[in-house]
């Protein structure tokens, strides 16, 4: 190692011959890799040779499997991201956080009430919230995580459920939380309580179920299933279309 190189970066690896474009250097848990510019963190890692089982899921920002934390050169800030949604940048130091340790408690949703007491009985740590807001800063979805927890403490389940709706369960907030709150599962419970007990039930769905149970559509359905292909096509093309 020459004196100019820090032990962390090591010598610059020889670039492959096959790629002509610009490359950047990323540090995967401290180890440098040279990758083409313009890839997401996930694709950059794969390019570098990682064949992942952990830390990859839907690849579209919906499943929360590919949470990463990183720092950029010259910054104190510990940033978070979803690897499948974020471009790899030159000098990025990153680590995968593919799992936040937490066991989901079991409960019988039928026996709960949509109030803070139900939530706190299962997740007592919610009341330990210090309002430090580290959770909000960690959320790669940009959710107001602390506000959602605070809403639970004051008993506003509806607000909490709506604030936490876009949660994809990556668990980064729970990793950062000094109160050790299991946000992912707290929010899951809160949303279900809201959806089940606080949103009014759809009466028209109930009506249709009654009609189906009474056999209202059976005859028409039988008839349709017996139609010749030609008749069926004609019927299909002549059906009226409701405006969007």
């Amino acid at each position, binding site marked *: 190692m020459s004196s100019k190189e820090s032990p962390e970066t090591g010598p610059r690896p020889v670039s*492959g011959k096959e790629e002509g474009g610009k490359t950047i250097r990323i540090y995967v848990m401290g180890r440098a890799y040279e990758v083409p510019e313009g890839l997401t963190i996930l*694709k950059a890692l*794969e*390019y570098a*040779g*990682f*064949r992942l*089982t952990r830390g*990859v899921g*839907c*690849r*579209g*920002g*919906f*499943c929360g*499997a590919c949470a990463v934390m990183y720092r*950029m050169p010259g910054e104190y800030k510990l940033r*978070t*991201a*979803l690897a499948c949604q*974020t*471009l790899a940048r030159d000098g990025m130091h990153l680590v995968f956080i593919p799992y936040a340790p937490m066991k989901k408690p*079991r*409960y019988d949703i039928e026996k709960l009430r949509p109030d803070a007491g139900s939530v706190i009985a299962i997740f007592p740590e919610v009341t330990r919230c210090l309002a430090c807001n580290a959770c909000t800063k960690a*959320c*790669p*979805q940009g959710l107001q995580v602390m506000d959602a927890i605070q809403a639970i403490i004051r008993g506003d389940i509806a607000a909490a459920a709506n604030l936490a*709706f*876009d949660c994809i369960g990556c668990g980064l907030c729970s990793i950062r939380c000094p109160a050790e709150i299991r946000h992912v599962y707290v929010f*899951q*419970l809160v*949303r*279900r309580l*809201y*959806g*089940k*007990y606080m*949103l*009014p*039930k*759809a*009466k*028209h*769905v109930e*009506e*249709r179920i009654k009609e*189906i149970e009474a056999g209202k*559509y059976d005859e*028409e*359905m039988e008839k*349709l*299933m017996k139609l010749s*292909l030609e008749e*069926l*096509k004609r019927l*299909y*093309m002549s*059906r009226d279309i*409701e405006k*969007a």
Partner: protein
Amino acid sequence: MMGLVYEGYPPEMREKIRVVEETREERLGQQIPKLSLEEREKLVRKWHPDYREDTKRPVRIGPNKGQVIYREVADLLESWPAVKPGDVDLDNIDYDVDILIIGGGGAAASAALWAVYSGVSPENILIATKLRFGDANTVKAQGGIQAADRPNDSPVRHYLDTIGGGHFANKPELVRALVMDAPFIIRWLEDLGVMFDKTGEGEMIEYTGGGASRRRLHAAKDYTGLEIMRVIRDEVWNKGVNVLEFSPAVELLTDPDTGAVSGAVLWNMEVKAYYVVRAKVTILATGGFGRLHLAGFPTTNHYGATADGIVMAYRVGANLRDLDSAQFHPTGVAWPEAIRGELITEKCRSLGAQLVNANGERFINELEPRDVVASAIIRECAEGRGIITPTGACGVWLDLPMIDRVRGEGTIRRNLPAMYRQFIRHGIDITREPVLTYPTLHYQNGGIEIDPWTHVLRPDGTPIPGLLAAGEVTGGVHGKNRLMGNSLLDITVFGRRAGITAAKLVKEMSGKPRISLKHVERYMEELKRLGVPENRRAPVLLPDYRGERVLLRKLDLIDLAPI
């Protein structure tokens, strides 16, 4: 959001966007008539990958020998087993259960819950899934779930829409089950606590989708699939069903004499050990094949969508159907490069976003069925009316700002939060800028043939005892083309039916089934006769995206499990 936000469109693309902006006013309220069946047929035949000669070939082995299917699928069917029969010790059973459910998405979770509701004890059910429970295409379904439950709608109409959208190739009994069960499924999900979009009185806010003649898409913002998945998964955990993650099935087990399916061999991808599971009933809910990248297309599918289910089912004699057809979602991301191939939900078009070519013209009614819209976009690009990206990809504009223009400021932020977030991360604000789109491989229309109670059928129409299947792995529900909102419905309707059927079969069965890999041995003889190269093995479990430079230098010196 603490991640960095980036630059957005490069100047040369920004320049091209001006045409979209300049024509927006005149496109407002412009009606593009829908095509006749003949016109549709002509368009699709000329441009859709399903009709291209070079994308398909006849499969040369197994129950459907001679059937023409996509090349990538044929290659998988003509593959050696991933595990050789001699390599596993079937005398030591690791899990002895009533029901084995293979897969970790919405169909698997629905099957588990309905088996529990039907009286099977949760500890006698095992869900084995490749990645995490919930890592599935289900969570990526944004637009909604269909159910004909409004007064001006009916299941009969839903049936007609579905079968017409599927080019009349659907299996009628399956479509009937799909549409008649739909309202029950909505009520079930509502009761579990799914946060559907509703009015203050509880009425479902329903959207229209391509090929549907009524507004019947129930949504939970544009996270519908995620919301359904996380709720039913939560409930599976609550019930105490056993779940093995990172342990995909690599082969089914069968009774050596009757050929009845009696479990599976699982492989723990983390520690690379196998487990033998004996089960009275096995449910395949392994999803689709997007990660095979048919015809070289990018895909919207999750990382594990590698057609494992059809490979395993084919080896035990299942009939496969409609695998000559794949759904290319008309609107995949064409730019930014980093998320190319990802889905732009059809809900955008439901809400009024327009497709616009490089000349600022609309070229298709946006609410035609998916294959028709996809074909039209491919045509525009092939005939030089597309927009070329800096990385050489081609696409047409999806004019999203039109949504706010027509439905009022704030509609996009309210109804498409996931989508807004996905693009703003790359510096593109969809409330002001159009996005570039091109078709992407989205859905496996065909698959394993089942009956309405999910029994897997042989080519002669008889069921394979002990084997059920539900969801994207099956064929027949959607014919040659699936309508938006029918996939979330498919997995819940047939997942439920599989759970109920499995419970019934378990009750009828006395004693433990016998297990063997005899069917694999027979299949291997055929492979040998065919002269299939030894290194072609399936299921493949995961795609391989490693860079060429690494692969050229790859050496397996010691067996490490990566974390």
